[in-house]
């Protein structure tokens, strides 16, 4: 980057025009999604609707939680990639209260979704032995605890960050060290809560199945989706100040490299799970894969392999592609779409032994986009888009370093 960046100007400039355009587009798509989902609720029945609701819910909370994790990671690691994307992560963690609210429909329809919550679970000896953990009251208590921890971390980090914007620029010291002091233990709490969350909300859909890597797999998927979303957001804002000043080819290259790493990480976790279950060949575990790799769901497994790993992997190997924000954002869009498909492939077979993806799955994903993105863009517009008061900002971003 050539020339000095004016830090005071960076704190003032906000692309409110871009944001309100993006926001109204999100509300329009969301409105279409909500109308389609409502129609689906009456046409396709409660069960089909809540399956789709859960898939969309897990997808969107993945973006909120992935942002919380990356927000804490960038405080610990430092670097220009984190400084430029920090406001996006912060704005996305601001959707967690909304996601807590949207969890209520799931909590009120336990029997529709969770086999172990139905009365007939009492006659299954395996489920009886798991009932100490898998019971509705404890499930509610855990969910409340997860949200308390996530919202607590997100609001504290956001509040401190707002104070940093409003105060005069300070040299490195206790006021920025506290971000790291919280983020370290925060990430440990994050890994634990998201692992339990994925067991509760996704893995327990098939209460006989268990996989110890399931939580890590969920975290990997969240990180991947969040990086893809960050690339898309930066690209959408890259034509106006202040993002145009700080988002260079170098930055897109960084996010592209991170996205490639997460594509590989996601594949690595998946192969680990498959390899262990395939080698053990145990009657508790193997039916989960037999259902998903053979028969009606088999073609979708190939689709996930090609679209979620092979294609993005080969494309992201190219250095030129990673440095080109517009082309990179198409790959990011593909990855977000494949995240939805992967979730359908994970959740769907629990309920649908004959069918595959349902149109309602996509309608609910679109429906969530409305309120989630509305709050996200509102949060993004309420603050300076660049953390120019961070004591490391000048060194990392303004001088064109890493």
């Amino acid at each position, binding site marked *: 980057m050539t020339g000095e960046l004016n830090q005071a100007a960076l704190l003032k400039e906000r692309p409110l025009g871009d944001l309100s355009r993006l926001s109204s587009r999100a509300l329009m798509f969301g409105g279409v999604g909500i109308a389609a989902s409502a129609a689906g609720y009456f046409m396709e029945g409660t069960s089909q609707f809540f399956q789709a609701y859960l898939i969309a819910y897990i997808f969107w909370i993945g973006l909120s939680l992935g942002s919380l994790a990356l927000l804490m990671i960038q405080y610990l690691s430092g670097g220009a990639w984190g400084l430029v994307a920090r406001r996006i992560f912060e704005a996305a963690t601001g959707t967690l209260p909304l996601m807590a609210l949207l969890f209520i429909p799931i909590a009120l329809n336990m029997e529709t979704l969770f086999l172990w919550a139905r009365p007939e679970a009492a006659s299954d000896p395996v489920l009886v032995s798991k009932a100490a953990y898998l019971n509705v009251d404890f499930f509610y208590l855990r969910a409340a605890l997860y949200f308390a921890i996530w919202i607590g971390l997100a609001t504290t980090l956001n509040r401190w960050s707002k104070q940093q914007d409003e105060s005069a620029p300070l040299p490195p010291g206790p006021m920025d060290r506290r971000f790291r002091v919280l983020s370290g233990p925060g990430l440990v709490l994050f890994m634990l809560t998201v692992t339990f969350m994925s067991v509760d909300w996704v893995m327990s859909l098939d209460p006989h199945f268990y996989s110890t890597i399931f939580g890590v797999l969920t975290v990997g998927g969240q990180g991947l989706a969040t990086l893809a979303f960050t690339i898309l957001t930066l690209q959408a804002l890259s034509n106006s100040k202040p993002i145009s000043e700080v988002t260079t080819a170098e930055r897109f290259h960084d996010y592209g490299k991170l996205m490639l790493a997460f594509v590989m990480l996601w594949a690595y976790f998946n*192969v680990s799970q*498959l*390899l262990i279950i*395939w*080698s053990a*060949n145990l009657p508790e575990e193997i039916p989960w894969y037999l259902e998903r790799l053979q028969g009606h769901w088999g073609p979708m497994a190939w689709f996930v392999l090609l679209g979620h790993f092979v294609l993005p992997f080969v494309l992201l*190997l190219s*250095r030129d592609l990673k440095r080109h924000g517009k082309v990179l954002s198409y790959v990011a869009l593909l990855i977000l779409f494949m995240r939805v498909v992967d979730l359908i492939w994970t959740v769907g077979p629990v309920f649908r032994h004959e069918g595959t993806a349902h149109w309602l799955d996509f309608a609910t994903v679109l429906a969530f986009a409305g309120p989630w993105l509305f709050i996200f863009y509102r949060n993004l517009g309420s603050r300076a888009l660049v953390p120019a008061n961070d004591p490391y900002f000048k060194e990392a971003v303004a001088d*064109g*370093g*890493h």
Partner: protein
Amino acid sequence: MAHHESPSTPHHGLMAEFDSAQALLDAAHKVAGAGYTRTDAYSPIPIHGLAEALGMKERKVAPFVLMGGIVGMCTGYGLQYWTSVFSYPMNIGGRPFHSWVSFIPVTFELTILFAAFSAGISMIVLNGLPLPYHPVFNAKRFSLASQESFFLAIEATDPKFDAHATATFLASLHPREVVSVDH
């Protein structure tokens, strides 16, 4: 060795010495801006953006790494396929001979191994290493390039090179000194 052949130029070139990384980087921008192409820079520390400043855009290692990776992948999978299906098939727990799931780790490892080897080896070969003799070591103070000084050389084979004009140009960049480097 190179200095036993008769060189096409009277000298290897001219070399300017600078006191700081920033001074070298600024000078590199000006040298490339003046149209010099056969240049090289020497520094005790890696300097971000120096190669780009001198206009070095070629990335010759990348295709070798890609080819190494593909060859490694085929070798890894092929080795296991050949041994498990043709050469020494064994029935393990009733699983098929072609157990592709269990082939993945070794395939992945060999992909990385071959890619890493081809990265290292192609980097060494493309750099012309090992290189027992290089004229820049004839410059008296050049050993400081591994300690505290920063050097920028313009070779005499550069089409824009002119012993007098280039020396004047280098002197205008505020170096510590400019020396002529013998073959």
